[in-house]
Each structure stands twice: as C-alpha cells, then as structure tokens.
C-alpha cells in the first residue's frame, strides 16, 4: 500500500484542513497566520518531494499511483507555484473574509493536481479531476462579482460536462478492458475494438483538456482569468495544467498503436496554440490576454505529449516546459496583481519608466512566454520542438514556430505602452493603480529573474528532470 509515498499530497491536503480549521477561529485581520500555515505545508511538500526525487520510480497504493521523477517534478513545481500564488494573494486577499477558505481551496486544488499528475489508474484520474476542479469553482466565484459569478457558472457547467465525458470515457475503456489500471490497460487495449478505445480516449483526453485549458475545453480559461481575482487567475491558468498535461502524457504513453493518438494530440496542440494566439490578438484586458495566451501555451505543452515515447526528449522537454511556463506565467500575472486596477493595456502606459524593475519583469515574462532566450521557456520550446522534429513531426515543429511569431504581436501590444512615453489615459486615480502592491511586485521580479536563471541554468534543470 505504502501511503508514505504520497506524503507530499497528504501534507498538502492536511495543510488545507488545518488552514480551514484555524481560519474559523482567527479574527479577520489575523488570517495571515493561515497563510503561513499554507506556506509551511507547501514548503514541506516541496522538501519532501525534493528528497524523494532522486529515488527510483515506485508504485504506490497498489499500482494506482506512480512516484517517479515526473511526479516529483510535478510536486515541486505545483507546490512552488502555489507558494508564488500565495505571495500574490498576500496583497489581494489579505484581510478579506474568505482568506483562509481561499488558501484551503488552493491547497485542495493543488492536491488534486498532484493526484492527477501521479495517477496510474483511470479511476484515480477521475477523482483527481474532481479534486482539482471543484475547488476551482469556489476559487473563481470567491470574488463575488457579477462577472466572476458568470465565469464560475461557465467554468462549472463546462467542467461538469467534461467530467461526465471523462467518466463516460473511463467507462468505455473499462468496458473493453475490464481494468482501469494503466499497467494492464496497455496490453488489453491493444486487443480491444479500436473504435471504442478511440472514443474512450478522446473522451478522457477531453476531460484532461478542460483541466489543462486546451481546446476543446478552453472556453472557461479567458473568462475565468478575466473575472476572478488576480491570484486565483494566476493559479488556475498555471497549476492545474501541470497535473492535467502530465496525466495526458501518462495516458497516451500507455495507449497501444491501434489508435492514432499522436496525430490527435498533435492536432489538439495545433488547434489550441493557434486559437489561443489568434484570439489573444485584440484583447484589451491584460488578464484576459494572458488567459488566451495560456490556451496557446497548452498547445505548446501538448507537443511533447503528442510525441510521447517517440523521442527521448519528449518527457524531459515537457517537464522543463512545464516548470518554465509556471514560473514565467506567474511572473506575468504577478505584474497584473501588482496593479489590480489597471485593467486595460493602455493603462500600462509609462509603467516601465515609473517602475523600471516591474517593467523589466513584465518584459522578461512576456518575452519569456514568446520563447525568447535565455528564459527557461525558450529551452522548453526548443526542446519540445526538437522532440517533435525528432519524432518525425516536422510540420508540428514548424507550426509551433509559426505560432510563436503570431503570438509575438499581442505580447508586444502590451510591452509597447509599458515603455511608451506619456501618461496613461486618466485611469490612475486609485492609489492601487499608481503604487504597485509590494508582495506582487517582488514576486514578479523574483519569478521573472527565476525564469532567466532557470534558462541560463537549464543544464541543471534538465538533469533534474531527466533523472
């Protein structure tokens, strides 16, 4: 059974419970203590994961959960990513009545993400999906604004539909194989009717795409990114993807050759990246823009999934990309949470001159998302593209690059006003729009720097993820 192997997940969940409980007894202004608790849980989980990282791959819970390098990396990235989100939340959520609940839900969702990431059984995937999704609905709605209510409704209804489809897919796969465990599925699916396997896989993948925010389950992403709070938006466009994409990787890795899943995943990747990029073109709200941008990033993330098992680079490149994307995307969001009242690209006019460090962080983050060296996303993009090419998917590699060019434009649309002269058009009336929030600002700078450092130290990162 070996539940000890799941210690990081357990720590996160228990941390969430402690946060929830202690939050009930804390005065509104002293809820920061729960933040400390949550941070402690996250750090503990990170440490535990890091300690377990060098070990050999092991199966936990009767083969339903795998603890290997991938899981380990996912744990570290998720935990640290959530930690960064906590830092952003320190400005935005601190002192709100729902502060402790927010942290608890963040931790629950992180736990669910990790369950997804390590799942080696279709049923575990299912419950991981639920555990990752349900807290998200609460997180999106917690802002309690009309828009956030709308976004919650949409996210929820989409999530419910895709959850049902996921269940249906699992049912189909189970039906033709009489098992839900990946270990057994590989062989049994090979003999099963391909049409059923295909339908089941598509349905399960669909569910994971919802979680990852890729086509066709992407509809909620821009809405939620725009309407929810900044920290929450950062979280939901970043962390759940990690689990979902890794789950997708594990899923397709065990599939037999009887279904053309590489082509399917490749097409989903192309659709996601293209759609995300094109739709982001004329967005004016920075967070919605980032929301669409994450849709496109999922497309890039799916590229190594599409070539899973066909290139040695696939898995390490996926993990590097995930880590890099997490850091970089959080940096971009941190800039938006530093100026919660700047909800228009034009309102960033002159920001770079007034706040050079934040401006630099934004530039690094956005160019990083484009894939400019030496940020870590570049390394990810380079290696994923190389993996696609290596596996013979040259067209996919080319499309990734073409899309990168397409993406450049809207990122530049944001960068351009940041360094343009002059004052923003009369919106900076509130102090929150003038003075950057301290925690978010530091977070932005640190994560942007980290994005560069990881890129420069990509060798270390690479050796970590390819143990």
């Amino acid at each position, binding site marked *: 059974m070996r539940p000890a192997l799941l210690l990081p997940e357990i720590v996160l969940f228990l941390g969430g419970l402690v946060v929830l409980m202690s939050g009930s007894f804390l005065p509104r202004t002293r809820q920061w203590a729960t933040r400390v608790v949550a941070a402690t849980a996250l750090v503990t989980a990170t440490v535990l994961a890091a300690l377990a990282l060098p070990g050999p791959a092991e199966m936990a819970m*009767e083969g339903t959960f795998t603890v290997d390098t991938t899981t380990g990396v996912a744990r570290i990235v998720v935990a640290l990513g959530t930690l960064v989100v906590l830092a952003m939340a320190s400005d935005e959520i601190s002192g709100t009545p729902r502060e402790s609940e927010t942290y608890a839900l963040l931790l629950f969702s992180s736990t*669910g993400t990790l369950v997804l990431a390590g799942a080696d059984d279709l049923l575990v995937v299912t419950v991981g999906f639920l555990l990752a999704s349900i807290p998200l*609905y609460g997180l999106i709605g917690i802002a309690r604004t009309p828009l956030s209510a709308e976004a919650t409704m949409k996210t929820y209804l989409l999530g419910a539909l895709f959850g049902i489809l996921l269940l249906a897919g699992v049912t189909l796969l189970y039906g033709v194989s009489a098992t839900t465990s990946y270990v057994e599925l590989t062989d049994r699916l090979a003999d099963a*009717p391909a049409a059923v396997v295909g339908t089941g896989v598509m349905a399960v993948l669909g569910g994971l795409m919802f979680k990852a925010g890729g086509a066709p389950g992407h509809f909620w992403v821009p809405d939620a990114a725009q309407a929810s709070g900044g920290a929450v938006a950062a979280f939901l466009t970043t962390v759940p993807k990690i689990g979902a994409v890794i789950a997708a990787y594990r899923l397709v890795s065990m599939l037999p050759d009887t279904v053309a899943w590489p082509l399917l995943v490749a097409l989903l990747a192309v659709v996601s990246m293209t759609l995300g990029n094109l739709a982001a073109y004329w967005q004016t709200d920075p967070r919605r823009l980032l929301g669409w941008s994450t849709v496109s990033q999922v497309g890039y993330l799916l590229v190594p999934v599409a070539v899973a098992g066909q290139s040695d680079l696939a898995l390490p490149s996926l993990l590097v990309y995930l880590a890099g994307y997490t850091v970089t995307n959080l940096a971009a969001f941190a800039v938006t949470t530093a100026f919660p009242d700047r909800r228009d690209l034009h309102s960033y006019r002159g920001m770079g001159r007034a706040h050079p460090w934040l401006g630099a962080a934004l530039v690094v983050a956005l160019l990083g998302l484009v894939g400019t060296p030496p940020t870590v996303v570049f390394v990810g993009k380079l290696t994923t593209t190389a993996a696609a090419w290596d596996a013979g998917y040259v067209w996919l590699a080319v499309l990734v690059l073409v899309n990168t060019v397409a993406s450049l434009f809207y990122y530049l649309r944001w960068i351009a006003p940041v360094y343009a002269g002059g004052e923003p058009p009369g919106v900076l009336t509130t102090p929150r729009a003038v003075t950057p929030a301290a925690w978010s600002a530091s977070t932005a700078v640190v994560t942007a720097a980290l994005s560069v450092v990881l890129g420069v130290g990509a060798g270390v990162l690479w050796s970590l993820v390819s143990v």
Partner: protein
Amino acid sequence: MVIDIAFWALGLVAVLSGAAVFYVDSMARATYALALSFVAVGLQVLFLQQNYVGVVTILMMVMEMAVMAVYMVMFMGMNPALMPMSMVHGNRTAVVVAVTTFLVLAAGILMVDWPARRGSPPADVTMALGESLMGPKMLVMAVVSPVMVATIVAGVVLAARRTRYDRFGDDLSRRPADDPQPGGVGR
C-alpha cells in the same frame, strides 16, 4: 424472456421520462421526471446484478430530487411548479446534435465487435466491491473524501453571501451573532 421485456420496458421508461424532463412545462415536473428516469435506471442496474449500486443509485437520486425541489422553491424566489416555462435556445441545433450523437453511438454500439466477457462475476458482488475499495482501489476512495471536503467548502463559499465575520464581527467576538433571522430559521 420476462426479464428481457422488463428490462426493455424500464429502459423505455428511463428514456421517455428523461425526455419528459425537457418536455413538461414546469420545473417541478421536470424534477419528478428525472427522478423517475433515475429510478428506472437503478432498477436496470439491479437487473444487471449490481444490487448495492442499484439501490444506492435509487436512494441517492430520490434524495437529490427532493433537494432539488426544495432548492427551487427556496432560491428561485418563485413557485416553479406553478409557472409554465419554455426556456429553450438553439433548439434545432440541440436536436441535431443529440440525434446525431445517438445515431453515431448506436451505429458504434451495433457495429463494434465487442470482446468476450473476461472472467465471471464474483460470488458476493458487494463484498468484492468492499474488498476492492479497501484494497487495490483504496486511493480512489481516499481521494473522494477530500473531494467531498472541497465540495463542502467550495459550495459554502459560493452559496453563502455572509461570512463568519459578518455574523460575529471581525474579531469573532460578537455575541450573539448578527443574523438576519436571529437564532436561525427553525426557531
């Protein structure tokens, strides 16, 4: 033979009552129709030798429909049972999608060369389920409980406008609580 007829009949009931959900003109009736559909399916599940699951399904659904009826009366601010409604959009598209889906699925079901049965059902089905839950699939159930916790938390967060700080003050020291209806509803 009788079993077959009963099974088909239940199936028909399940489908038709399902369709009735969207045909009847009040939410309450829709709720009853849905419950009927679930009960029919639950019975079918019983036919398929899954006693425990079938019963659970029936019980859960009856409860849930009761909740739904109460919910609608409570929150919708109206008595939906009495209000005729036709709140449909994109009807044609929906019909096309649904019919196409059915046709595709049916075609698939009929054309696929389903594999042979693997093994046979255990002697005590419910026992096997319990052993599985406590054994190989423990993680599944272990995760379901956090999901429930999360659902409760998230549900409360979304549904409740007022927080503990609204009731007890920012330092949680106000007694008695400041409630719109002091002491709660049932008093």
